[in-house]
């Protein structure tokens, strides 16, 4: 092979690989093509009275996001509250797998009872982002708090700083993990997995920048409360019919 032939082949190869690479890259990002984060600001509404505690949201979340199956790692979970006539409050989390029904509480003892789905509150004033020493936890332009698992050093300061217990340390990755509102789905126009599977539409996902969003309607039609408002975290997960016993 002479020099001219070699350089000819070399440049052809170079161009083809670059072109194919570009094409592949474009295909990979085609789904979120045209997605402009500055045009969105996400939030979730939860209608407590609609939740039946089936735990499908928990299961769907674990499936969708590769959350470890053991009952110590949750991006979302559902709490069951039973307030007894004597004022005693009984709380437990329904994890959809290991917990059975509580048989100890007699029906006649129960004053009121309800389920509360919980997840990362995607705070607008997030304490986790404030404390992360390396900026691995950050807020996106469209308002979602994410963890860069390639940068997280596993110091767990964010887990300590979260007032809602929404974070855990992934036992295999050894990095902090939490709900992302299924960011990989919502940027493609899909709903978060938990919202998608909820049979009673207790969870409402939407864009607060869009006047036609279900979230906007939720906010218009309900009296709204957030968890631990005194901490000034400014949650973007909003609850309707929230009981004062819920923390």
């Amino acid at each position: 092979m002479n020099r001219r032939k070699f350089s000819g082949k070399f440049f052809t190869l170079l161009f083809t690989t670059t072109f194919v690479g570009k094409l592949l890259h474009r295909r990979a990002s085609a789904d979120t093509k045209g997605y402009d984060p500055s045009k969105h600001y996400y939030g979730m509404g939860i209608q407590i009275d609609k939740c039946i505690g089936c735990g499908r949201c928990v299961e769907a979340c674990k499936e969708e996001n590769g959350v470890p199956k053991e009952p110590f790692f949750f991006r979302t979970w559902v709490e069951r509250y039973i307030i007894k006539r004597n004022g005693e409050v009984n709380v437990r989390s329904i994890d959809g797998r290991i917990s059975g029904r509580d048989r100890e509480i007699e029906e006649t003892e129960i004053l009121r009872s309800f389920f509360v789905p919980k997840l990362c509150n995607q705070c607008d004033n997030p304490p986790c982002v404030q404390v992360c020493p390396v900026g691995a936890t950050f807020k996106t332009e469209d308002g979602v708090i994410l963890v860069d698992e390639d940068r997280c050093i596993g110091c767990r300061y964010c887990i300590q700083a979260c007032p809602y217990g929404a974070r855990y340390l992934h036992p295999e990755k050894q990095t902090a993990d939490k709900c992302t509102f299924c960011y990989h789905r919502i940027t493609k126009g899909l709903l978060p997995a938990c919202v998608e599977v909820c049979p009673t539409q207790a969870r409402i996902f939407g864009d607060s920048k869009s006047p036609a969003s279900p979230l906007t309607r939720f906010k218009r039609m309900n009296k709204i409360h957030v968890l631990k408002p005194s901490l000034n975290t400014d949650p973007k997960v909003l609850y309707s019919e929230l009981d004062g016993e819920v923390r």
Partner: protein
Amino acid sequence: MNNPITEKLYELLKQVGGYIYPNEIEIHWSILVVVYPYITGLVAGAFILASLVKVFNIQEVQSVYRLSLLTALSFLLVAPLPLLLHLGHPDRSFEIFLNPNFSSAMAMFGFVYAWYLMVVLLLEIWFTYRRDIILWAKNERFPMRLIHRTLALFSTDVSEKAVRFDKKVVKGITIIGIPSAFLLHGYVGFIFGSIKANPWWSSVLMPIVFLFSAIVSGIALVILLYMIITPFRKEPIDMKCLDKMASYLFYAVIVDFSLELLDFIHRLYQSEESIKILSELVMSKLFVSLGIIQVLLGMLLPLGVMIAIKLFRFDDELRKLLYFVSVILIQLGIFATRWNVVIGGQMFSKSFRGLTAYKMELTGFEGLFMSLFLLVLPLIILAIMIKILPPWEPEKNVEYLTD
């Protein structure tokens, strides 16, 4: 998945009382994070003792000045290790230096640490020892000669002018050093005190309480070391020095105790949302480590002993014994203080409805043996440093220090 972490958590599940958020079963900051503030506390305390000697020129305590500095350095060298070992990704720890998030209290660690090590401690020790190292090197053979010459950075000037300059620099560094030592440990307190999500930690008093408990533990450690090392050197214990140090210790314990009492009363009186679960925590899980070890054995008993020493004229031998027992109890108490802050703060749920448990491992990176090793390591480093930089010989050093 047969992960040892999850296996451990299944066991812990049985010890959970009341309701906790499901992600809260794991205690994330383990005994290593208890060791970290304990060690930095010792650093800050030992340094503050040294600074008191220098700034106020207190004659009685001159003989432990250098020992305090070396103690501070040897513990400071070990201080980052528990943090490093505790990280999920120690391989990425350098990110704290390269990519710090300036709103994070923890990100400041690198800067505070580097400042304290490089600007304060190393410089102060170097200028304090420079003349002596040069003189030692003159009468020595290989390898000590080489070690000392290298440590002196091959400077040879021992003229009066140079020595006067050294002294001036030491004084200057000490003046910067005191606020730096305050910063080093106050900042550790801030890491906890600034977490609004955790009512056990979230307190403006936290950095100050940390600071004074640091001073207590640092002075107690230097007393302990002095009392152990001196008989080994076949020297008599200087009772004036010991009494003076114990006197400082006494005042520091009183301030520390008052601050902690204030914190306690304030919490009780304010009686916020968390008071029920915190009372439960103190009365059950922390009863031994807080009620018995921290308060009774670590604070009230030594305080009583020291008051008795001040009131009655005990003879030297009895005083020595009482001091010795007191400083050991104080060390135990301060370690328990750190334990109660770090572990205690994670034992209750942020739902304020339940308590979880901490089961310490024996082996492994986050286990008891590693913690003990990290607590012994500074003593080994100190022993080596004392060999290379004897803090008491030759006698004329003391002359040079006090003049």
